[in-house]
């Protein structure tokens, strides 16, 4: 199935909650409104025509000039029977874009749809600061629950992959050195 056909199927079911799409790109994609995303995700997985049974990756992108974050979900639909002699084939693949404002980056979690989303969402929160609401491994924060950090320490401040991230000059009393080496505090 081509990305256009997948987009048409989604538009028939979800109407204007499918915001748009881009099919001429090297990375064909459909854009989904954040509040509709868990429903769309369940539909993508369960619809017999689509059957996107594998979430490959979630890439968080900082679009500083648009004042937005994009969560890019790459999905794969594998076709075959486990334990059989036959090679599995790719039915089709699609990418889903979910855009959220930088000031209030909340996307509902889809970890209940694909278990793989658990760690990917934790990473996207840790490094980019997108909050996935309803994540199964959430901890309390000043602005409500957010996924537990995964790569950085739990007490790390900020989200390193944001374009406006300020390089910390100190962590737990350990002084940091930038690549130019001039910021070590003088004792």
């Amino acid at each position, binding site marked *: 199935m081509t990305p256009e056909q997948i987009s048409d199927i989604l538009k028939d079911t979800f109407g204007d909650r499918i915001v748009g799409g881009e099919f001429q790109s090297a*990375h064909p994609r459909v854009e989904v409104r954040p509040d509709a995303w868990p429903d769309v995700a369940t539909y993508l997985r369960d619809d017999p025509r689509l059957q996107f049974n594998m979430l*490959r990756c979630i890439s968080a992108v900082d679009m500083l000039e648009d004042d937005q974050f994009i969560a890019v979900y790459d999905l794969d639909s594998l076709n075959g029977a486990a*334990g059989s002699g036959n090679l*599995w084939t790719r039915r089709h693949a699609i990418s889903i874009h979910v855009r959220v404002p930088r000031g209030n980056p909340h996307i509902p979690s889809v970890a209940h749809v694909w278990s793989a989303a658990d760690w990917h969402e934790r990473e996207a929160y840790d490094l980019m600061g997108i909050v996935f609401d309803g994540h199964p491994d959430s901890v309390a924060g000043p602005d409500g629950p957010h996924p537990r950090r995964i790569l950085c320490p739990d007490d790390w401040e900020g989200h390193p992959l944001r374009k406006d991230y300020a390089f910390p000059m100190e962590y737990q009393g350990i002084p940091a050195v930038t690549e130019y080496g001039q910021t070590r505090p003088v004792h």
Partner: protein
Amino acid sequence: MTELVLESRPDINADLTADQIRLEDLQTEEMLVNMGPQHPATHGVLRVVLRTDGEMVLEAVPHIGYLHRCAEKIGENVAPYQYIPYTDRMDYLAGMNDNLAFALAAEKLAGMELSRRAQLIRVVFAELNRIASHLVSMGTYGLDMGAFTPFLYAFREREMILDLFEAACGARLTYSYITVGGVTQDLPERWIDVCSEFLDYFEPKIDEYNNLLSFNHIFVKRTANVGVITPEDALAFGLTGPVLRGSGIRWDLRKAQNDLGYDEFEFDVPIGEGLKGTLGDCWDRYYVRILEMKQSVRILRQALARLPDAPGDAYDKRGKTMKLPADEIYYELENPRGQLGFYIQGNGSTIPARVKARGPSFCNLSVLTHIGTNCLLADIAAIVGSIDVVMGEVDR
């Protein structure tokens, strides 16, 4: 006489009867055990917090990030050909494959086509590195299970592969040989002959490993029926590579995507079949790697036969001046540990706006909590070893 039944594992009966045990000697509370980050069986700086009840593990929670270098941020500050040396530090046991995955992603985004010769050389090195990586996996897995000798055998053969790499590019671990635009230099004289000799030497050794380790009774007892991943779980958790195929799913990107001309080579995709126990257990995952080494030898023989007549240059210097269009791509390649994916967003300049790496070990490790519950403490080493993680790639 009452039989003692372990609450967390009612299927295991203790040999002692209740009146033989003095209750005051028993520690009945749960205990948290920190396994790692410095532990020989965790293959790098992996820390697993185990909630244990005696010898039983009730829950295993991995904690990662000890090797985090924010490699993705570096990718936003350098041109693709400059990022190549950072990629082979992700999965440092399969540097060639990591270089290849990123180079292909960048070339695909920029719409760059390579010569047949460059493609074939890449296939040869990717498959050689696959063998080297599986050898380490096999050897260290034997170590984890208490078998020291196979490790020495594996490193003896891996050494020869590293010598071949050294002859081609001078490096033995972090190669940066496969780069954007091809490979940095063509093969030296007689390299193909030496490589063929190595394959003739290596192929019979695989049976030796099987006799030594794969079908060893103790090894089978430790790994069969342990850490079973069902095919449904394998898909849901996004597992890839030998871990996915160990669960009986015959899926391989080398067959599904035809990027390097893999469709002209004859090879099979081995899967786990539950030969020694249940489908998708540790032994199945281990054995898939052994079988894959045989298939890599098959591919290598075919690729080496075509290499002398392959037309074109090994390196295209446009790779260094390549501009990335204002578009994006997500590209995955079948690495020894699974599908290594790169998401690259270009903005019209030579430096990408965003680089994201999806490490196969990262996704494969995420299944540990799911399968590491209600098993024996010793099984955790068997499970972690069978997933075959490289922490450089988990933490990036």
